[in-house]
């Protein structure tokens, strides 16, 4: 059984915390969602408060987004080869008013406990970039960091409350596993060798989160009925919050918007 089917069955049979981003099939398609999203799914299966409510929404951006930043990657011949035409980074990535890569999570209102899954969330270094850009995992859940590049990288998160670390992966195929023991949102991760590489790790004590897709859409599934405060966090823009009440089996909508 594929991961997609597994999740669909589990979500139907025993409503659990499941997060998916985007619309239609993609919402339940871990393969199309950030690695963190797929890894979070089993968490709610471990005796946590169960629910069948969901919150869907669109995070929009109004105004003029900053122009894409051109990045020189010539400092490393391998990265240059991977990006022959150079690299562009859109920190504020907007399509049809929807804002991509916004981390959306339940900030308050949850009462249950949600043990961390044992399945690792992956952070891959590929083409001198991090994949995914937004990593989400639970406290104590393993984070597997892989180097798929034929060049060296160091992995250096700069947390505020968790322990900082800096590890090197000089060869392709190397893997390291780390865990975080405290809740913390949007820990910047960088490679000091290739300063353009940037990712964000968020560590939660529950599996109710989502990351917006390229249309700015996301959905948090498997929530117990209740009143929640939802926070949307973007790496560049200020965070937005909203309150919403959901009932079992109901799909509520919460849209948030940023102004440029």
């Amino acid at each position: 059984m594929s991961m997609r089917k597994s999740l669909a069955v589990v979500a139907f049979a025993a409503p659990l915390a499941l997060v998916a981003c985007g619309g239609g099939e993609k919402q339940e398609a871990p393969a199309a969602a950030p690695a963190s999203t797929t890894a979070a799914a089993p968490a709610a299966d471990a005796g946590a408060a169960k629910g069948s409510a969901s919150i869907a929404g669109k995070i929009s951006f109004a105004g003029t987004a900053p122009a894409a930043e051109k990045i020189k990657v010539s400092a490393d011949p391998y990265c240059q080869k991977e990006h022959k035409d150079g690299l562009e980074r859109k920190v504020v990535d907007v399509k049809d008013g929807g804002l991509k890569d916004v981390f959306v999570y339940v900030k308050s209102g949850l009462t249950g406990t949600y043990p961390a899954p044992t399945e690792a969330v992956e952070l891959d270094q590929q083409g001198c970039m991090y994949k995914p850009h937004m990593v989400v995992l639970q406290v104590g859940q393993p984070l597997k960091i892989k180097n798929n590049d034929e060049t060296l990288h160091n992995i250096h998160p700069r947390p505020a409350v968790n322990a900082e670390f800096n590890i090197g992966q000089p060869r392709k195929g190397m893997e390291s596993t780390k865990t975080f023991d405290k809740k913390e949102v949007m820990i910047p991760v960088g490679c000091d060798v290739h300063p353009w590489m940037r990712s964000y790790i968020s560590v939660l004590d529950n599996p109710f989160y989502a990351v917006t897709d390229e249309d700015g859409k996301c959905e948090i599934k498997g929530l117990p009925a209740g009143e929640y405060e939802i926070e949307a966090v973007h790496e560049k823009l200020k965070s937005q919050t909203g309150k919403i009440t959901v009932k079992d089996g109901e799909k509520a909508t919460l849209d948030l918007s940023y102004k440029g």
Partner: protein
Amino acid sequence: MTPSPGVPREPSAVAVGGSPGVFPFAPWRHRLSVLLVASTLALIFVGGLVTSTGSGLSVPDWPLSYGMVMPPMVGGVFYEHGHRMVASAVGFLTLVLAVWTARAEARASIRRLAWTALAAVIAQGVLGGLTVIFLLPTPISVTHACLAQAFFCMTIALAYLTSREWLAPSGARDDVAGVRGAALAATAAVLGQLVLGAIMRHIGAGLAVPDFPRMYGRWIPPAEILEQAPVAVHLAHRAGALVVLAFVLRLALRASRGHDVRLARPAQIALGLVFVQIGLGALTVLTGKAVLPTTAHVATGAAILGLCWFTTLRTRRHLRAPALAPAVAALGDPAVS
């Protein structure tokens, strides 16, 4: 280690440097010490590049780099491992100079200074390693930056005290213009400013005040912003620049009054560099810490310190304090003939 037979022994009461005209000039050892001075200044520049490019943690291990002696020199590794390589070369030069000095130098004070320099460069290497292992803790990073300046001064002393000028049998005259005190005070002021600069740099306060010459749009900054430590350190560094300017200007004026080009020239160059340094500091802020002005600011600061310290040593050779001359002579001050 004792000097080789045939080298004159140092008189027991001779102070640092020994009496001029007594000890032979060792040209090749002196040249090595001058090379060490130049290499150390280059090392300070390269070290500044590491911080300016944000490459301090691009090599996460120490003493090896990614478990290798020679990793691929890509991205930030070029700066960090390059710094380690230049530092190793300086360490090696210091080791050679210390052993050579121990074997050939008659003056115990110079032998001690050479060993101290070796100990300092080893400690500096260890501090550099600790900054990597402990992820750039501010106290260690600041100590690393300050010890670099102290080591630089040691190399200058080793070079000058083994120079033909120091060892030549010529007399000293009364310091009527007060150049000795002015040189020492200027050196102390520059050193204090470098410590402040190192703190500012390593707590990331270089842009805590984002405008120049005004401060948050005002000539006199609002008092409430001083409550923030990074802003306070940054403003102290700016104020320190004015203090340094005053002290180095005083030194240059006094040294020029004595009509001794050996004292006037380094003091005047130091004064010129202070103006360059203020310009570089301004550029550092206005360019948002662009790599070149920021790094040049670090190296120029070291050069100013070196010149003031060199002038101080020269005043000890060519000038004597009038009121204290008899007492200093009794201690064997080389400047007293």
